């Protein structure tokens, strides 16, 4: 008993629980499919009754039709329920059974010899249209099963029907049976078409899922390659800096007389070694930074409540030596209360150091003025100089990696990477970096850092 109830329950579930493919996100297509099927079932019912009523030219036969029509509709619905599950073949059998029952209903009702011929062309056309959507194998199977069923019915039914219903039926007229069969067959072909559509939808979904999995794997492979690249960059940074430690410091020891007396010419020469070694060092840092930015693997180490004042001060103190031999005044005009922001202070220092040192490098007379102010969302730090300015046609070069303006190239002590790196760093903070410049009047660079940083703090 229990197992029977269980299996009934299982059948009920398999009929009523829609397959995940039907429930999926593509609601529009599924709704279309549903509405077509429901309207088709209604048409099925209506069409059969109508055709028989016309054939009979009376409604006397209603009762006889009601039973097979109701059963057929129930079976159609059941077939539809099965069709929603991935089991295709049971649904095909049920549809054939549906067709057979409707056909037998038609046989029971077969009356006058000539009326059916009037509707035959339309029905044949409908069947052909229905068949257009089906694959050949399924059409063949359904047709064969119905043909055999008909043959059997034609041989057996007249006597049985007479016995059961207690009234006389004219000998079955084969052409009417054929016509009825065509109607039923055509309609069921349509159901199969919708099942086919369901299969296609499901296949598409499987393909989509496969694609998603492939993309996931691709992303994973990229991530792994990225990690390898990051590890390589980190180790390269280490390997390049270690020998520079010896080069720079041994040179400076000799230059500063730690290793014994040196004359002025030697000192000056060693100074050039040091300058170039340090340039090489900054080049290494910049190339590593730009590689990380271009690989999208730049990480910020955001800390809360960073006071910007000392960071700006450090940038100024570090770059002041660049102005040592020039008559350029560096003015710092900061408000007393700059708000503390969440940021990666090493990176903010790097941005400011870059902007201020650029101003120092390119300004030969006049002043450099550093100011800061707040807007609703940002702290904006600006560095204004009275340098040569940047020509309009060079404005795009400023933020292009490995590019420099003519005057920048003439100086030959920059990498052309400082500005693109600084802009990326500002943007990584959710901020901006831009400039305004007029040739002959100077340039002003602005850094805007959001008061509430949007960048995700990296996990250490």
């Amino acid at each position, binding site marked *: 008993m229990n197992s029977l109830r269980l299996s009934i329950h299982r059948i009920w579930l398999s009929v009523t629980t829609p397959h995940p493919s039907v429930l999926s996100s593509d609601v529009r297509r599924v709704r279309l499919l549903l509405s077509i099927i429901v309207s088709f079932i209604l048409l099925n019912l209506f069409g059969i009754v109508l055709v028989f009523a016309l054939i009979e030219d009376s409604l006397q036969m209603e009762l006889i039709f009601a039973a097979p029509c109701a059963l057929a509709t129930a079976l159609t619905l059941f077939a539809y329920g099965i069709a929603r599950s991935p089991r295709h073949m049971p649904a095909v059998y049920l549809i054939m059974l549906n067709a057979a029952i409707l056909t037998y209903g038609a046989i029971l009702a077969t009356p006058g010899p000539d009326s059916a011929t009037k509707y035959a062309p339309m029905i044949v056309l409908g069947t052909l249209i229905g068949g257009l959507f089906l694959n050949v194998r399924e059409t063949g199977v359904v047709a064969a099963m119905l043909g055999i069923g008909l043959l059997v019915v034609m041989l057996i039914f007249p006597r049985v029907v007479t016995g059961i219903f207690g009234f006389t039926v004219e000998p079955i007229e084969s052409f009417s049976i054929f016509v009825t069969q065509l109607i039923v067959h055509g309609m069921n072909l349509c159901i199969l078409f919708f099942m086919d559509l369901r299969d296609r939808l499901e296949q598409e979904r499987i393909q989509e899922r496969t694609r998603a999995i492939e993309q996931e794997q691709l992303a994973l492979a990229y991530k792994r390659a990225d990690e390898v690249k*990051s590890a390589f*960059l*980190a180790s390269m*940074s*280490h*390997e390049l*800096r*270690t*020998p*520079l*430690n*010896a*080069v*720079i*410091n*041994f040179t*400076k*020891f000799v230059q*500063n007389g*730690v*290793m014994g007396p040196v004359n002025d010419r030697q000192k000056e020469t060693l100074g050039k070694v040091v300058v170039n070694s340090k340039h090489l*060092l900054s080049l290494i*840092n910049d190339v*590593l930074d730009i590689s990380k930015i271009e690989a999208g693997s730049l*990480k*910020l*180490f955001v800390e809360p409540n960073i006071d910007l004042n000392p960071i700006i001060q450090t940038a100024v103190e570090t770059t002041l030596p660049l102005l040592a031999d020039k008559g350029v005044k560096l003015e710092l005009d900061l408000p007393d209360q700059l708000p503390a922001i969440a940021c*990666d202070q*090493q*990176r903010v220092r790097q941005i400011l150091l870059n902007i201020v040192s650029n101003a120092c490098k390119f300004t030969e007379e006049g002043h450099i003025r550093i100011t800061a102010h707040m807007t609703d969302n940002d702290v904006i730090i600006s560095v204004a100089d009275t340098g040569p300015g940047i020509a309009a046609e060079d404005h795009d070069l400023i933020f292009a990696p490995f590019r420099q303006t003519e005057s920048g190239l003439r100086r030959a002590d920059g990498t052309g990477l400082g500005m693109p790196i600084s802009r990326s760093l500002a943007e990584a903070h959710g901020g901006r970096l831009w400039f305004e410049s007029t040739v002959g009047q100077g340039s002003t660079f602005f850094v805007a850092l959001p008061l509430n940083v949007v960048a995700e703090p*990296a996990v*250490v």
Partner: protein
Amino acid sequence: MLPIDLSVLYVDDDDYSREVMQVMLAEVMGVRHITLLPDSHNFIAHLEAINPPPSLILLDIHMQPYDGLELLAMIRRHPRFAAVPIAALTASVMNEEVHRLWGAGFKAVIAKPIDMERFPGQIEKVLAGEIVHG
């Protein structure tokens, strides 16, 4: 400025880095007690044998068999040296690495190449227990 009896231990597997440090400490900064170790084999035994005991420890990070982070943990667990100021000296100055060092408990991280002008000031800060960055 530096204490007269300052004893420095420096562990680094790069020969030239040790030599630079030797000159820097002895001849530029006038430190008299300097111990240099090329690796971290038998580290605790070496540490305990140093006379006078080190009052400042500088650690490279990439070393065999124990790296700088493991050495830091070993020193911090040692009853006699737990409170000795320690600085990491690293040529890996990428953000990720530096933050790994902060996370491991280093209060001072000095970047290689060291800067002859800035290094003495950085050491003073380390000795004063201040945070040193870069």
